[in-house]
Each structure stands twice: as C-alpha cells, then as structure tokens.
C-alpha cells in the first residue's frame, strides 16, 4: 500500500472495503467456488458502479479516476480485492480497457469500451499459450481476403467461457521466451485483435484450477475470420501496446497479491497470539516469532516494491517495465513464502477445507505464476538491461 494517499483515495478505499464486506468477502467467494462465473450476481455491474473498470480510461471515453492517476487509484482497489480474495476479471477487464482507450478505433470504443466501463460486458485478455507462458506464435494471424484468419490456442485466459470479447495477440510479443538462450522466433511484430467470443471458430473451455476464487480456461481459434476493423492499434505494431498492458497487469496483480499477503499474515499473527501451547501463546516462542518477523518483513518489502512499481508505471518512467518485473518477481516469491509459512504457524487447522488459509495459498500461488513467473521476470530484467544472451 502506497503510504501517500489523498483524501479522495482514502474514500475510494473505504468504498471498496464497504462494498466487499457487503457482497463478496471470502465466505461468499467460497460459496461461489463451484459456480460457472464464480461471481456474485450483477458483480460486474456493481463493481463498475464503483468505477473499477473506468480508472484507466480518459473522461472523454466515459472513464475517470479520483486522483487523476488512475493506476495508483486502481492499485488501491486491487489491494482490497486481494485482501478479501475478490473474484472476477478485474485485471483483464482493465487491461482491455486501457488497450482500447489508448489504441482502439472509435467503433471499438463506442461498442466495447463503454460497455466495459459500465460493467455490461466481460472482456478478457488472451495473450499466452496453453503452458501459461508467452510462447512464440501461440496464435497466428494470416492475412486473407478482406481480413485475417486467426489460429492457435491461448491458455490461462481468465473467465474464458464467460467472456464476450477477447483481446487477442497474434504473432509474438517482444518479451523473452522462458528459455532465454532460445532467441529463435523472437522477432517483433505482434498484432492485437478485439474478437467477439461468438465469432465462428472460437471455442472456450473451462478448466479446473488451483485457485478457487478466479476462473480460467483456454480459448482456441480455428481459422477464425476477423475483419481489419478488429485490429487494435497497428498491424505488426502492437509491441509497445502489449508491453504497456503487461505493466498494467503486473501492477494490478502484484497489488492484489500484496493485499492477500497482508490479510493472511494478519490472520496468522492474531492466531499466534490467541493459540496456547505449553502454557504460553505460541507467538511468544522465538521459533514462531522469528517466522512471523520474517514474513512481516516480506509483507513490508513487498508493499515497498509494489508502490515503486505502481508509481513507475503510472508515471510512464523509462524503467517502468523493469520495476514492474522486479515487483512481480519479488512479490511472486514472497507470496509463496508467506502462504506456506502461515500454514506452518496454523498447524493442522490450516489443512482443513473450512479454514481460509488454503484459499489464500491457492490465489497467491496462481498469482505468482500468472503473467510470468518470478524466474521469467528475472530473465526479462536481464534482457531489459541488454545483458548479452551470448557472452
């Protein structure tokens, strides 16, 4: 959490907390874990009323944020979402919103962006392959008579089966493949398309997942015809756009993780004070106390780097991509440290389905590997520094 907040930002936070308490705390989310959408009724519209999909969109297109720094505002919401393990396609909706706001055609903005801002449609981001990492050509676009044909399959697509719109990246993003030594197929030139899920040849499949609070699936494209009007930005020129989207996704994903880490840690801290063993609260044993101190350090350090990343991306700093990757790498590791470390303090009770700790473990672990694992981001950091792949 950024320690510098305006009064308006405090109000934004309070409003988010109030809404979450009323409608979607972990208990509610648990009950929703077996439904298709995983969301309470009218969740998208109600959160849209709070401006959750508007903050990265200029006022001219129906958006707006309380401080004028939309990402910093949104990060506050993200943290509260994480704290209460909120469901729904918060990150992909905002990624698509920012993509359309920056690069969409008038028609795309009128038809889709306005609906996203209003929470009337579910749009999601289809950018990685089925292995969950950026693969060269997970989806390929071929020019054809009057448009393009899309083929391929994307994995780890949030709310794949409920989505009405897909922001698809064809060709290869400029980021490194996970095996850094492999530079083959890393040439630039991706193109982004806004594709209706109803298009012929689009097939979405729901998957089960470690995370019980969010829904993921695959989307396959079998010779899906899309007209030129579906292109977002320029043909072969989406590299910078995709980078910007990644940065937004990283900041929001990290902020959610920070909220979840902080809430889980606080549950654990309280437990260590209340739980008695050997005639003492277990938190009075140095063996437990030191674990908690280390976890608390990880929460504080995580908040520090998350804040730095939020500010860097908000300001469009030249090193924003690097700082965002640092935040994702560091928090991604710390999240698992904390999720696992808290289990150690809870002991047996943490292994019961009814206890919330596994919901946090699941969400945090998925967050750690989604949008690039810590290892992936560390390699990216080296590449952003132009450290030669071959010395």
């Amino acid at each position, binding site marked *: 959490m950024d320690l510098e907040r305006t009064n308006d930002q405090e109000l934004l936070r309070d409003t988010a907390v109030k809404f979450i308490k009323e409608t979607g705390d972990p208990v509610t989310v648990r009950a929703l874990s077996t439904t298709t959408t995983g969301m309470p009724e009218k969740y998208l519209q109600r959160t849209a009323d709070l401006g959750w999909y508007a903050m990265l969109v200029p006022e001219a297109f129906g958006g707006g944020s309380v401080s004028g720094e939309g990402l910093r505002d949104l990060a506050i919401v993200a943290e509260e979402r994480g704290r209460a393990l909120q469901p729904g396609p918060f990150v992909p909706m905002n990624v698509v919103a920012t993509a359309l706001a920056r690069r969409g055609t008038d028609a795309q903005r009128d038809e889709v962006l306005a609906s996203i801002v209003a929470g009337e449609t579910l749009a999601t981001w289809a950018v*990685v*392959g*089925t*292995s*969950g*990492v950026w*693969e060269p050509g997970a989806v390929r676009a071929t020019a054809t008579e009057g448009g393009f044909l899309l083929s391929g399959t994307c*994995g*780890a697509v949030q709310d794949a089966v409920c989505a009405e719109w897909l922001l698809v990246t064809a060709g290869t993003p400029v980021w490194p493949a*996970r*095996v850094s*030594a*492999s530079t083959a197929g890393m040439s630039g030139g991706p193109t982004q398309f806004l594709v209706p899920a109803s298009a012929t040849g689009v097939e979405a*499949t729901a*998957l*089960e*997942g*470690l*995370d019980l609070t969010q829904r*993921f*699936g695959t989307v396959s494209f079998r010779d899906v015809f899309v007209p030129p009007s579906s292109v977002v930005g320029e043909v072969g020129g989406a590299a910078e756009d995709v980078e910007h989207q990644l940065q937004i996704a990283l900041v929001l994903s990290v902020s959610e993780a920070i909220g979840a880490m902080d809430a889980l840690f606080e549950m654990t801290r309280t437990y260590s004070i209340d739980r*008695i*063993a*050997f*005639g*003492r*609260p277990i938190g*009075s*044993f140095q*063996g*437990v106390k030191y674990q908690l101190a280390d976890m608390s350090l990880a929460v504080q350090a995580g908040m520090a780097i998350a804040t730095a990343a939020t500010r860097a991306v908000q300001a469009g700093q030249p090193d924003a991509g690097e700082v965002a990757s640092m935040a994702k790498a560091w928090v991604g590791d710390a999240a*698992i440290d904390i999720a*696992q470390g808290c*289990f*150690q303090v809870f*002991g*047996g*009770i*943490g*292994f*019961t*389905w*009814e*206890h919330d700790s*596994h919901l946090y*473990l*699941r969400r945090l*672990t*998925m967050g*750690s*590997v*989604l949008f690039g*694992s*810590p*290892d992936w981001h560390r*390699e990216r950091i080296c590449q952003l520094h132009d450290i030669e792949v071959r010395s």
Partner: protein
Amino acid sequence: MNTTETLPDMNIYRENARRWLAEHMDQRPSSDASAESGLATEEFLKKKIATARALQRKLFDGGYSGITWAKEYGGQGLPLEYDVAFLEAAEHYVMPDFDTFNSTTFDVCVPVMLEHSSPEFLRSFIPKVLAGELLVCQFFSEPSAGSDLAGVRTRATRDGDQWVINGQKIWSTLAQFADWGMCLTRTNWDVPKHRGLTWFAVPCDSAGLTIRPIRQITGSPHFCEDFFDDVAVPDGYRIGEVNNGWTVTQSMLVRERGAARSADTMSPTGPGDLVPDLVAAARKAGQLADPVVRQKLARAHTNDYVSRALGFRIAQMTAQGDLNTGVAAYGKLFKGVYTPIRARIGVEIAGAGAMTWDPATPGADATALAYLNGRLISIAGGTNEMQRNGIGERVLGLPREPSFDTSKPFNEVLLDSAHWNGKD
C-alpha cells in the same frame, strides 16, 4: 509362544503356506497398475478397507493371521521366522491393505494395548483384530493440543465402575472407518500435565460419540474430528493405570516413530530415475531444456536421494545403539523441510499452465495436489519446530527452553497462559 510345544517343521510350514496361498489368494498383477490416484475419496477408501477386511478374514481362517501373536489372543504363537517365511511366500499375492490402519492398528495401537490393557479385555478383543473385524484408530490430538500432546483437555470422570468422557478430538486418521479408538483423557486436573492422563479403548459406535470426517484442503477426507458427549466406557476398557497415561503415550510414540522409520531402513539403492514426476511436468511445460529448470530438477532429485541416504544413516545409528534415539528427528525434519521445497519446485517448473487443468485428464492436477499437500509432513506427526526442539535439546544437548507448564497443576497452567507476560 509356548516353548514346550513342538514347532512345525519349517519346510513343511513353508510348503503348506504356498499351497494355501495358491488356493485362497489372488496373485498380484505383474505391473502394479493399482497405484492410487492423487486424491483418495471417501468412496475409494471405503471400498479399499472393505476389501482388506475380507482378505484379513481369509488369512485368519487359514491360520495365517497373527503368526507371532499369543495363542491366548487368537494368534499362532510361532517365532518370527515363521512370519518371515509366510511373508516371503506371500510376496506375489494380494494381501490385505488397510491404508493407514496398517500402521495405526497393527503397528501402533494394538501392540500398545497388548502391553497395557487387561488380559480379560485382550482375550475378547485381539482375536477380532486378527480376523479383520476390528480396526483401531487414535483419539489423540485435540483442537487445543497439537504439538503439546500432554495438554489434552478431554475429560474422563469416574462414575462407579465406568468412566464418562467429554471433549473433542481431531486428526484421528480414518476414524470414520474405525471400529474402536484409543482415547487419551485427563483424569486429574490438579497435578502437572503429564501426571493426570489416562487412556481408554472406546467403541466407535458408543452413544454420545460423533465422528465427522474433515474435508482437507485437497478435498480428501483422511482425517476426522470426534465429539465426546457423555460417552460412557467401562473401567475394563482402560489402557494402563489411572493417571499413568503419559507412560502409555511414550510407548505409543516410540512405536509411531518405529512405524515411520521402517520405510527408511532398507539399505540405500541407487538414486534411480531423475524425479520422474517433475521431469514429466517440465516436459509438458516445454521447459526441459531450460537450465534454470534443470537446476530445480537436479535439486529435487538430489534432495530425494539425500533423504534416503539419511534414513539409512539413522537406521544404522539406531542399530548400533551408540547414539541418542532422538536422531530419528533428523529424518522427519529433513522431510519436513524439503517436501515443501519439492512441491514448490513442481509449481515453478510446471507454471501457470499446470495450475489449471481439464478435470477429464487423469493426473492433470498432480502438481497442484502435491503442492497443497507439501506442508503436511512439516506439521503432521510432529511439526518441524518440535523436531528442532528435540534435536536441539536431546541430541545436541543445548540448554532447555524455559518451561511454564511442566511443574504446576494443569488447571493453573490454563489460567496463567491466559495472562502471559513473559516474566520470570
């Protein structure tokens, strides 16, 4: 074993066993495809245990159950070599597999009862165990007594010739399938905690006893919580002396460690294939060529082998008897530290692609399940912290952690702990 009787000729015994096995038991399929899936459901466990009971009954009827156990209790009263001979002959047959009851009933609870229960009780009880009719679980841990085993608060009150038990137990493994349980209770609250404990054998269908499976974080129901609401048991079901329960407990803990250790005592074989599950996950994620992933594979593989080498070393130490038995804690701590690391390596290697899966693909959730279960061994059967205390104080001879509950009445401990201020 009554040494005045003539023992059967070993060759004939072996030959008879072979013939009996061929007639009554099924051969195991050569490729053991019966390997269990990652997630054992209630239904799966129920069927498994019913099958085992039937097989155990066959053994009992054939005279091959309790080969070394006393005849008085329904056993065969033979020396260990006959048991070994039978097991060798039975190597390729399907034998009863009671899941964790293999150890809780046969290696831990019943041997402890044989040592501490009354002969009258044992005469009626043990034959049914040997016949597969009685499976025994442990009513041991409590919601407020996990690591602090001697801190149980389940109360047993004497009422004439019986005892009335009230309280709650938890982590009773497979109690929903058990017939009896061994229950640790507090019978005196006015003495230090180790001195007011008493054990009882409790039928699981006792009035007032509710056994409820706990859904674990994986969804599997391997453990139960158990509510004792005025459960009456006759004094004859008592195991050991009144208020001497800690002695019985120690005897049980030694057997638990023994049971846990048995898997490690084989001499170390080679390291075998490179962590096949993780290599498969890496291959599926297309990451097998990634040097960073390869480091993780080799790391997990090496830790696995070190764990086995350490188990062998501990078995050697124990056999040589030249070292404190606390050394078994090393094996437990190694697993408690490295199992979560291995589970995490799985997630790091498999990546986001393996954290979502098609439920129709068998084993697609393997990495995720292993991950969820990863920290169980860090906690169950003694947390990493308890192992570190044990190694520190009992093996390394480090000065003791100050104790606030071993020398005052348990009632007082409960009161004082609510007002902890860290003062001497």
